[in-house]
């Protein structure tokens, strides 16, 4: 694997430059809708109940109950723990909203490999379209890259043809060089299991359990790894920032960064997702404000 050192300061400056893009009028409307369509509406609490998941799924299909001339898109997916996959599948079947599940010993990954693989296999069997796996950070940080790669390959083989999102947990990796190395490692490992189609493999920043999570510079490093893989192979890997993106404005900044780093091709839920829960309502708030020309109250939007 070729080393790709990262200079933190220039990276952060470049990432910050996207936050100064001014997204107005039609571009803003389109961007907000686009962002909404890219949300993986997520609940990952110990207290998650079937009823909560059902409610989340309804919100996913139809994020807002109000009437608009141009109907809002549904979100991309609902993301839940493996136990709740059957519930989600029941509600979402045939709606176009996909079921994603965090498996492989989420969030720590601190389980024997056999357990993690069974976790993933059962989630797929229960109907998950997408599996969000965590990499073995212990092995990665200890420099046992091959062990990390092998586990990714095994998970990929186990869950195929379900799509795979590989969580790096960037907040635990220490610096941008490591984020880049983990991105390259994950992409190369997944790609080495056989031909992959565009969007079949994602890399994902975080579990949402660790801060910092989807910061602009961390995402930019990962986008650059994706771009280099695309340059080298023509295959489009997907990207999923997760954790910490709560405001519509932050989502638009991320989209600007994707557009200018990878191009418009990536501006689709097939290749870009937001792992988020509170983001959805802020997107809606901004969208409805633009449609209705007035500021909306938080209670105008249902909790998931």
């Amino acid at each position: 694997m070729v080393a790709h050192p990262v200079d933190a300061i220039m990276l952060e400056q470049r990432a910050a430059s996207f936050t100064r893009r001014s997204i107005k009028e039609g571009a803003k409307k389109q961007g907000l809708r686009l962002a909404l369509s890219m949300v993986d509406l997520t609940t990952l609490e110990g207290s998650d109940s079937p009823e909560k998941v059902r409610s989340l799924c309804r919100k996913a299909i139809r994020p807002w109950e109000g009437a608009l001339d141009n109907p809002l898109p549904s979100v991309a997916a609902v993301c839940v723990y493996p136990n709740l996959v059957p519930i989600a599948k029941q509600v979402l079947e045939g709606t176009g909203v996909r079921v994603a599940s965090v498996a492989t010993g989420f969030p720590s990954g601190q389980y024997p490999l056999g357990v993690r693989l069974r976790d993933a296999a059962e989630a797929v069997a229960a109907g998950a379209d997408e599996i969000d796996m965590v990499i073995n950070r212990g092995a990665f940080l200890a420099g046992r890259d091959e062990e990390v790669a092998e586990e990714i390959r095994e998970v990929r083989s186990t869950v195929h043809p379900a799509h795979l999102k590989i969580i790096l947990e960037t907040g635990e990796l220490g610096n941008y060089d490591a984020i880049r190395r983990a991105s390259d490692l994950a992409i190369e490992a997944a790609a080495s299991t056989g031909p992959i189609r565009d969007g079949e493999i994602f890399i994902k920043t975080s579990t949402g359990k660790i801060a910092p999570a989807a910061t602009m510079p961390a995402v930019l490093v990962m986008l650059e790894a994706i771009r280099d893989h695309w340059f080298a192979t023509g295959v489009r890997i997907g990207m999923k920032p997760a954790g910490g993106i709560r405001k519509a404005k932050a989502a638009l900044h991320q989209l600007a960064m994707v557009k200018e780093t990878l191009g418009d091709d990536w501006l689709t839920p097939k290749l870009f997702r937001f792992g988020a829960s509170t983001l959805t309502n802020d997107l809606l708030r901004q969208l409805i404000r633009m449609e209705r020309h007035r500021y909306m109250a938080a209670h105008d939007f249902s909790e998931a």
Partner: protein
Amino acid sequence: MPQRIDVAKTWKLYIGGRFVRSESGQSFPVHHRRHGTTVHLCRASRKDLRDSVEAAKAARSGWSAASGYLRGQILYRMAEMLECRRTEMAEALAAAGSQPPKQRLDEVDATIDRLVSFAGWSDKIEQILGGQNAVPGPYYNITVPEPTGVVGVLPPDKPALLAGVSMLAAPLCVGNTVILIAPEAHPLPTALLGEILATSDVPSGVVNILTGRRADLIGHLADHREVNAISAVNLDEENLTDLRKRAAESIKRIHHERVTTPAWMKHEERCSPWCVEPFLEMKTLWHPSAC
């Protein structure tokens, strides 16, 4: 008829570490007032100037990259060698004839002390003139002085030795290479200085000494695109304007001062960092700071 005829030499030019006769084959006479004799010195031509610029240019990277410690030792060695030939140099000063013997020795001694003082600057000027700059941002920002390059030095006639050596040592100690053009009316001490330098471990080409007619050389010095700076004192208005005009083409640095003859004896003032600074270029480095 005297019992023995003196073996008189024609003083050569000192170029690239070698003593050479002028390419032009010309020499010029100077009257040694004390001895009542005529001394001949080579009269440097445009081509001799060119050769010395080439030599100075070639010596530049080695001399500027040499450690300050080494340059300091070499300047100190120059002082040691001049001390050895103290009386001989006083005799050379006597060629001008106007100074009493005590004053001549005083000038030589002051010159030796001046060299010792400049020797000390060679590894200290960075700390006086350089530094770190507090920029708002995650950067290390430091400024370090570096030598300008090839410096032409035009010392005044008086004090022939002390002024010339002060003007030579300032650019020299911080890593410039020099073409020293001896004072026209009183070149003998400078010519002798060349012989002293040749035995002082000064690398070839680091100091080059030309004797001759200023008018033959000064314009070419100002024009030459490999000469980066010229140090001169007490030029008349017309010469100075002409020098500046000609230097404009290559954006040459012209350092010109008006200095009275007694002022050269003011030791602290004449070897302050501000005597060295005109022959330094400030280089500023930026580097990000992050993990």
